[in-house]
């Protein structure tokens, strides 16, 4: 089992990267959840994989496709309906300057 300390610094850093502002209460909640997640995943460490780095279990390589005429997707509006806020076709998000 891996010893991982989910302390305040880790929570701070993760929320920063995720661009989320967390309350003290939420921080505590995430701390507990993170620890539980890591605990669950520690099971993976028990698998014997040997020395070789193993990223893919299938041996298939080179799945490539030929470039050709673009095929427009015919339900673009279904995607656009998922945008929270729209203006002149753009998605509107918070400004950053």
């Amino acid at each position, binding site marked *: 089992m891996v010893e991982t300390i989910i302390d305040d610094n880790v929570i701070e850093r993760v929320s920063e990267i995720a661009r989320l502002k967390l309350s003290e209460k939420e921080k505590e909640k995430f701390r507990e959840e993170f620890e539980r997640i890591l605990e669950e995943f520690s099971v993976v460490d028990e698998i014997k994989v040997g020395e070789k780095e193993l990223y*893919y279990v299938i041996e298939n390589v080179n799945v490539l496709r030929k*470039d050709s005429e673009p095929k427009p997707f015919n339900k673009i509006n279904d*995607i656009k309906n998922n945008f929270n806020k729209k203006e002149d076709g753009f998605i509107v998000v918070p400004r950053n300057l």
Partner: protein
Amino acid sequence: MQLHEDKYKDLNLKIGLEIHVQLKTEQKIFCECSTDYINSSPNNNICPICTSQPGSKPMGVNEKALENLLKIGLFFGCKAYEKPFYVQRKHYFYPDLPSNYQRTSQPILGDGNFMGVGIWEIHIEEDPGRYELREGKVDLNRCGVPLAEIVTAPDIKSPEYAREFLRDLLLSLEYLGVIRGESGSIRADVNISIMGGNRIEIKNVNSVKGVYKALKYEIVRQKAVLQRGGTITMETRHFDEGSMITKTLRKKETVADYRYIPDPDLVPIYISPEKLQEIESVLPESPHNKKKRFMKEYSLGEEIVDALISDLYLSDFFEESAKKSNPIESGKWCATELKRRLNEKNLSVSTSKITPKHISDMIGFIERGELSVKNAKWIIEDAVDTGEDITSLMDKKNFYQISSEDTLLDIIEKVMGDNPKAVEDYKSGNENALHFLFGKVVNETEGRAEPSKTIKLLKDKLCMVN
């Protein structure tokens, strides 16, 4: 020696670039949407894959994008890695990237060289969408356009050379036909260190001019910090295109924060030697081979050849003009005056109006003693700008050199009559007086007096006064 290298010698300046160029394809890298993100209304060339709708999976990598990337690498003399490479997920949260990770491959080729600058590695990745920071507007049309990232060694020693390097690199890629036409504006991350100080990274510079300006600014800023007794700490800065200055980026992600993992939706890719051979067989002559050939075939000096091959359009142009004129002369004019004028006008021979015939005709006029070297420079400028043929430019500008002895003697006599003191000075042994009088003749003829003949006649005439 690189352009203006001397100016920065004391600074021990080291510049490295990470250059992003869009690879030319019809479809995006992982889906069948069009890559034309410019001529289409916002959020119109999108699908569940490139906008990362829940449950969507990428299609196999667009083969053409990969082939174009291989062309770039092999052209710069890179070697492909023998091990298969895989596509990774680089995680970060930003509005231009709906999946919250960018797919970016491991290095595919490396260890190349272009214009004396090492190419460390080249890999493929997907472009994110466009995010207008000020307005808070996002257009995802660009999401998934294939990109090549070219990482150079810190071999560049002046901002001027960085500019020249980028300009010529872009021209070469355009010549190879592997990048999107409108992507002339490159995106680069610029790394710079001075006096052995820490490396500063400037992110997202969007033009060749921007790279030059950002570097100039950073040199001044870092010098000032050091002069005040401060230290340069490693940091990432943002370049503001409007004010042309760099600013500290407050939030900084480290490699660990990106949580790179191999994308489980895509299988590894192996580049076989046969594939490399196939690509190599359709590549134009490499700059390295061209250099060797030009030096041998045309007996040109290394400096001239370097200038010619840094722009492949120019090297073709030179070869064409050398068919009908003295190659040494043609090489010299193409590598110096022509290149200077093109740079000044931000043009290439492919976009300007000048043709190889202009150069060969011009050399003919010089060799026949009808055009002075000084005026030939003006002819080149006009030919670049207007494309008018040399004979009519000669007429229009009245550039025909005066080599008739009678005409020259008339002018010399007039100049001597107007400047009796200089004539006296020469007689009493002042050599400078000869140059003065020669200058007067040149002025009198608007630069058209044939120099060697004028000097000879002037000397004879002055001796006769004795």
